[in-house]
């Protein structure tokens, strides 16, 4: 039999001014199951809480209802008080008679009536409450970082420096991501490799970081604190521990004319056995088996093998699957650039001197194909006039993407500036829609490009580019003057839009996190939980979430790291117990619940007889992942799932108490 205590709070005159608290208490005392109902001036005060604790103890209460302010104010206060007397905290219910009664109604009689109704609802609800235990999940204190770009590197270093082991998985043969391809970075013009390589080396040498390059995530299972991951370490064909990175192998490789360098964005060639760039970390080559003569011609060529001093080349190495157990994951898979060929009118692919922004970075870079001398790809001449076109693909819902790629305004201004520094007397033209230069020092930087370097900014779009007598004729509009413009340029640089890394949707599905229609990972909350994914234990960083610049990527990497260090600072992960639970006797295993669950919290569980034969497959709620929204409860046809704290019978009891 329920023994419920009711406390009606006056909140000074805040409630008592509009609600007849004495009458509310009197009426409450008449409800079956209520053993005592009292009113008190301030329930949240220490004496108020002591009254509550005293009654729980003396009357041996099984449930408490407070008619007071919003549960969002003091529910926790009263729960804590109840716990001290040994009452399960979820046996405290609050009827909100301040925010939703006394403050919004003036007629005392009606307000009192409503207060009594709300109180009754809660009494009926608390009668049906069941004890709920908060969920505790053990933690494997090891983190996995997916992606070795700047945000992944930052996350890995921060976690590792916090004393936690990190596994960093990178798909490419070297870490460094897109940032290592850049020349100098806006707005301070520090050289990207100068600030990036020390970090890469730090990752490589860090005792807490285990680095897997040329590796991909193969499978993820488990949940927060207890993920099992399988990593496919692709065959490098090199015995890594013996390699000294001397370069004898790639210098002798006969395949040096046919393969385009990914690092130099097709502006130069690489060999079949190669390191992507000289500062690669680890400085261990990899054999590209799709082009290597040894693999294509049945083992005839083995020049690299012969040249290798430590004899660390092994053509027979196979892909390897490595299994690891981790407690948290950072998804920092980065971005790609859109296909420039989408815009046929710009002639990318048709005219050699129409290049992308990333290609121009390589032309500017001292480690690039031209060693930092700006040369036209077509004939190697130094260009004197360059036209930069911004928003190629970005902010174009028709052909490209509707969002702004955020970095292009700034890197175009940087390109124009660096071009002016490198080729004196040159001229840049920039076609733009709007200039978005919103971070520290950005506006001044763009202004500097316009005012000090003489770049001419034209607000408008380019309609057509064609070749005439060795020049690229750029036809466009200057919407501010209202004129058509025609520029004879030596080169055209397209600021191509940013899109999520190819395969990011597959990655999201593997991780069980949500992603938007473009493929960018979605945050758990766009403002308040920007580092968390929708799945507990999986965090996000870098451009994989959407366009952002280097400082923001670094911040997001650190944010994810700090979340993980915070998570790992406790011995167990604790979550509120108001989660879904399955009645496995009635569950028919249709898994509609699994479809609606936004948290991948529902898994399949086999019920077996004593001989190990599977009797049926039922749904199982993973308490570490369940957020307690209750969507699965309504998806269940057989009424086999219920939400603790908001059980069907509780809601029906609330409604029933309102019968008129």
């Amino acid at each position: 039999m329920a023994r419920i205590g009711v406390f009606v709070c006056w909140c000074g005159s805040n409630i008592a001014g509009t609600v007849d608290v004495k009458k509310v208490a009197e009426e409450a005392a008449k409800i079956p199951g209520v053993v005592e109902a009292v009113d008190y001036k301030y329930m949240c005060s220490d004496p108020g809480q002591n009254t509550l604790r005293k009654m729980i103890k003396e009357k041996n209460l099984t449930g408490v209802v407070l008619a007071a302010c919003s549960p969002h104010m003091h529910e926790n206060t009263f729960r804590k008080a109840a716990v001290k007397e040994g009452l399960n905290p979820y046996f405290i219910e609050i009827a909100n008679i301040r925010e939703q009664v006394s403050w919004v109604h003036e007629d005392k009689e009606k307000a009192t009536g409503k207060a009594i109704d709300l109180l009754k609802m809660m009494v009926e609800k608390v009668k049906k409450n069941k004890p709920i235990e908060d969920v505790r999940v053990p933690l494997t204190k090891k983190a996995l970082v997916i992606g070795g770009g700047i945000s992944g590197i930052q996350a890995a270093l921060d976690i590792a420096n916090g004393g936690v082991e990190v596994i960093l998985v990178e798909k490419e043969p070297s870490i460094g991501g897109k940032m290592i391809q850049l020349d100098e970075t806006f707005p301070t013009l520090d050289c990207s490799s100068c600030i990036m390589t020390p970090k890469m080396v730090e990752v490589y040498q860090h005792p807490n970081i285990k680095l897997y390059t040329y590796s991909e995530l193969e499978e993820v299972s488990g949940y927060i604190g207890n993920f099992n991951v399988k990593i496919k370490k692709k065959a490098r064909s090199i015995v890594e521990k013996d390699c000294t990175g001397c370069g004898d192998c790639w210098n002798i490789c006969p395949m040096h004319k046919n393969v385009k360098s990914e690092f130099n964005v097709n502006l130069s060639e690489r060999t079949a056995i190669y390191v992507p760039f000289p500062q690669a970390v680890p400085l261990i080559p990899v054999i590209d088996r799709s082009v290597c003569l040894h693999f294509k011609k049945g083992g005839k060529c083995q020049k690299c093998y012969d040249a290798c001093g430590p004899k660390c080349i092994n053509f027979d190495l196979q892909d390897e699957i490595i299994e690891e157990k981790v407690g948290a994951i950072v998804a920092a898979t980065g971005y790609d650039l859109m296909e420039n060929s989408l815009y046929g009118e710009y002639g990318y692919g048709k005219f050699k001197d129409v290049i992308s922004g990333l290609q121009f970075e390589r032309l500017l870079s001292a480690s690039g194909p031209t060693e930092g001398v700006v040369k036209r790809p077509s004939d190697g001449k130094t260009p004197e006039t360059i036209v930069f076109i911004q928003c190629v693909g970005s902010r174009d819902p028709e052909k490209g993407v509707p969002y702004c790629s955020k970095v292009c305004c700034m890197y175009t201004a940087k390109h124009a500036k660096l071009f002016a520094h490198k080729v004196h007397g040159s001229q840049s033209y920039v076609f733009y829609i709007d200039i978005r230069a919103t971070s520290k020092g950005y506006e001044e930087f763009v202004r500097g490009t316009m005012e000090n370097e003489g770049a001419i900014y034209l607000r408008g779009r380019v309609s057509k580019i064609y070749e005439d007598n060795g020049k690229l004729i750029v036809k466009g509009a200057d919407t501010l003057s209202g004129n058509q413009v025609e520029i004879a340029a030596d080169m055209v640089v397209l600021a191509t839009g940013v899109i999520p890394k190819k395969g990011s949707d597959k990655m999201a599905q593997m991780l069980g996190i949500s992603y938007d229609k473009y493929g960018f990972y979605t945050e758990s909350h766009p403002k308040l939980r920007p580092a968390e994914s929708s799945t507990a234990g999986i965090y996000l960083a870098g451009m994989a979430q959407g366009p952002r610049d280097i400082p923001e990527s670094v911040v997001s990497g650190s944010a994810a790291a700090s979340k993980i260090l915070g998570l790992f600072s406790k011995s167990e992960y604790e979550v509120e117990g108001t989660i879904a639970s399955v009645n496995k006797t009635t569950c028919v295993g249709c898994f509609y619940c699994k479809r609606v669950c936004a948290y991948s919290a529902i898994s399949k569980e086999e019920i077996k007889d004593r001989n190990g034969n599977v009797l049926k497959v039922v749904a199982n709620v993973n308490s570490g992942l369940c957020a307690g929204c209750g969507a699965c409860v309504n998806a269940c046809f057989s009424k086999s799932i219920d939400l603790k704290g908001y059980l069907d019978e509780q809601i029906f009891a609330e409604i029933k108490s309102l019968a008129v």
Partner: protein
Amino acid sequence: MENNIVEDVQNAQGDKEYPAGGAKGEDKDKEPRIIAFVCNWCTYNGADLAGTSRMKYAENVRVIKLPCTGRIDPLFVVEAFKKGAKGVLVSGCHPGDCHYTSGNYHSRRKYTAFRDLLSYLGVDINRVEFSWISASEGNKWVSVINEFTNKIKSLPGSSDIFSKK
């Protein structure tokens, strides 16, 4: 659960299972009872904000708090009508703002299908209101309650939930 929801609802509307303590008085001047199913994160906070801003609205609404509109079972709505509600309000986070990512979308989809079912059963669908009210929209909560109350009052045979055709 229900073999014949229509009969059930009709019978229950006539029943007076037990009269609620405060809600006495003549049927004529009584405000029509509204039961509101709201989510914990947006609309409940919006209603609280109306309170902290000391806005005033009709006292006929009884709020049932749930974690998310995705938790709202259509049977709750049926049950509310059975227990004499003259209107049912479902309100949660705006599209895209759901605390649980997609619960409000599930709710919206369910509502769209359920509206037709209710209508088929003969319930006047003007008595079921669906709205998005964020935690910052105390004023919207007030206007939704007041407008919904007035709408119900203006319906022909306002105490009978079945549509008059």
